């Protein structure tokens, strides 16, 4: 703070080096994040079909072995390899997360775009609906939906999709409203463009980057939500490896003092989430360079 009030020359110099430092920190962040995301995607896609290993293989003689070279993340209470199960769990969580995020984004974009483009009474009605949905805590509504439709993968996906579309709808509606007031839309309309053409040529391409960004950010949210449900025993069926269910399953071992069956599945949630958030922040900076970057979760 103080150096901004000192001489102009020194101030400019300080600004330049600080800017360069910040840029290199940002590059490092983007590279690390990309590396993690690529690693995660590769592991999830390549390990299960290639490795001739059975993640459910039980070996009672090797139960609760601490991390070692043969089992990098140790083994769980029935002797299954924690690292292998983490990869499988991440595969399931990522699949559920991506599908749920797509569901939420499609609902949100459709609702937000319709409300923003048509306006009037429909817009007011939709916004009331959005307000109502955001008044119910997400996880509680998710728990309710899953409890009623259990068990299975689809109830979880629907529960996440139905609770997370609201923010996307708000973003898309605001974007459509701001686009509608721009001169090039007026120009298109006075040039004789049909409603359809305005929507397809101008509104949808304008909204797409924001919607896509919201969709990417939704994936960690969805994974978080799915693992919370699975942790509570309300998510995916117990036999499917899921990160939340693994944390829950490791509880007994943890209370006996063995930390690894709980610690590693949790790290598998935290690290990819941070990587996605880092990339999303960089992307948002490109969309809107004037706004200083903040990571967004």
């Amino acid at each position, binding site marked *: *703070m103080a150096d901004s*009030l000192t001489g102009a020359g020194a101030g400019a110099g300080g600004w330049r080096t*600080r800017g360069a430092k*910040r840029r290199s920190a940002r590059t490092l962040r983007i590279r690390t994040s990309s590396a993690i995301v690529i690693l995660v995607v590769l592991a999830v896609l390549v390990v299960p079909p290639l490795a001739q290993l059975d993640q459910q293989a039980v070996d009672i003689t090797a139960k609760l072995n601490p991390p070692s070279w043969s089992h990098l993340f140790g083994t769980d209470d029935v002797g299954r390899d924690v690292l292998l199960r983490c990869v499988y769990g991440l595969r399931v969580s990522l699949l559920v997360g991506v599908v749920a995020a797509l569901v939420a984004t499609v609902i949100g974009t459709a609702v937000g775009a319709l409300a923003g483009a048509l306006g009037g009474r429909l817009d007011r009605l939709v916004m009331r609906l959005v*307000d*109502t949905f*955001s*008044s*119910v*805590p*997400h*996880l*509680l*509504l998710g*728990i*309710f*939906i*899953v*409890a*009623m*439709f*259990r068990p299975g993968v689809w109830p979880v996906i629907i529960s996440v999709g139905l609770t997370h579309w609201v923010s996307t709808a708000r973003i898309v509606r605001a974007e459509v409203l701001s686009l509608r007031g721009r001169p090039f839309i007026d120009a298109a309309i006075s040039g004789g463009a049909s409603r359809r053409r305005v929507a397809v040529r101008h509104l949808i391409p304008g909204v797409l980057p924001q919607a896509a960004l919201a969709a990417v950010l939704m994936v*960690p949210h969805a994974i*978080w939500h799915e*693992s*919370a449900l699975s*942790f*509570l*025993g*309300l998510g995916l069926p117990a036999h499917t490896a899921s990160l*939340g269910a693994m*944390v*829950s399953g*490791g*509880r007994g071992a*943890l*209370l006996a*003092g063995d*930390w690894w069956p*709980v*610690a590693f*599945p*949790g790290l598998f*949630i*935290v690290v990819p*989430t*941070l990587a996605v*958030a880092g990339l999303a922040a960089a992307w948002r900076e490109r969309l809107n360079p004037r706004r200083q970057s*903040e*990571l967004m*979760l």
Partner: protein
Amino acid sequence: MTAARPLPYTAMARMAGRRLLHAAPVLLAVTFGVFAIAAASPFDPVKAYAGTAGMTASKEALADLRANLGADQPFAARWWDWLTTALSGDLGDSTSMRQPVAAVIGERIGWTMLLCAVAFAAAVVVGTLLGVLAARRRGGLLDRTVTSLAYSLEAAPPFWLGLLAVWLFALQLGVLPAGGLTDTGTDTATFGQVGSHLLLPASVLAVSQLPWFVLYVRQGVGDALDEDPVRGAKARGLAPRTVLFGHALRSGLLPVLTLIGTRVPELITGALLIETVFSWPGIAAATVEAATGVDFPLLAALTVLATAAVLLGNLISDLLYGLADPRVGFDG
């Protein structure tokens, strides 16, 4: 602001009244939605009521029960029945706890409020402190540490943090109990017992709420420090302490602190997970049990209760915001 000024009670009361009128249709819509979801699901209230006895009961007995429970009616009719009896104070019976829903809520809500209040207060105090410290030198070492810690904590699931805290504090260090409300074997909840059992869950809940406070306070105070009045005050040679407390905090911190009422949904989400991890006998843990046992009456009541809490939080937030910034007023 320094001179004692009477609060605009009438404007505030009018706003509260308007919000109450808005809240009624929202709550109605939520109850209707809850019944609609249940009607669309494979959930059968008769089987849930009869439990294992339903497997062996005759068709006639089940049909009688169905008529008795009113489950043969369309869901809109059942919704209306539930609503009218609920308004007279009868929320039905919980099928998983075998108790009236009102009794379950009455027994447990106090413990949840205690947990949430302690955690929230801790999060506000610590979050404000860290946020202001980080904002004072943006880009400094402290700022970078606090910010990256906040983002990491935000990404970490609270149930995972809770279990790691149990491992560290209850098992490795042995300083705090791992869960429950009192030690096993004692029935009476004394102050010391509850206090020591509260410390760990409340701390983890506070930590899970902390990132938001830190980041928002940092943003608010940091932006305020860049504003013209602050620059002017610095240029006049006022002490940094005076500038921070007299100028930056007032315009940067107050609006953020009024936002805390909008954090009720996140607090409820956190409580759902933390109470389950620590076997805390609160209402959130009961929600999870009710969901596992497909206890519709209890789930419906709790969903409405949570929605009411969220709306109340929003109202408090808006009232405080109107007080903190008179330009905003109480028109919302």
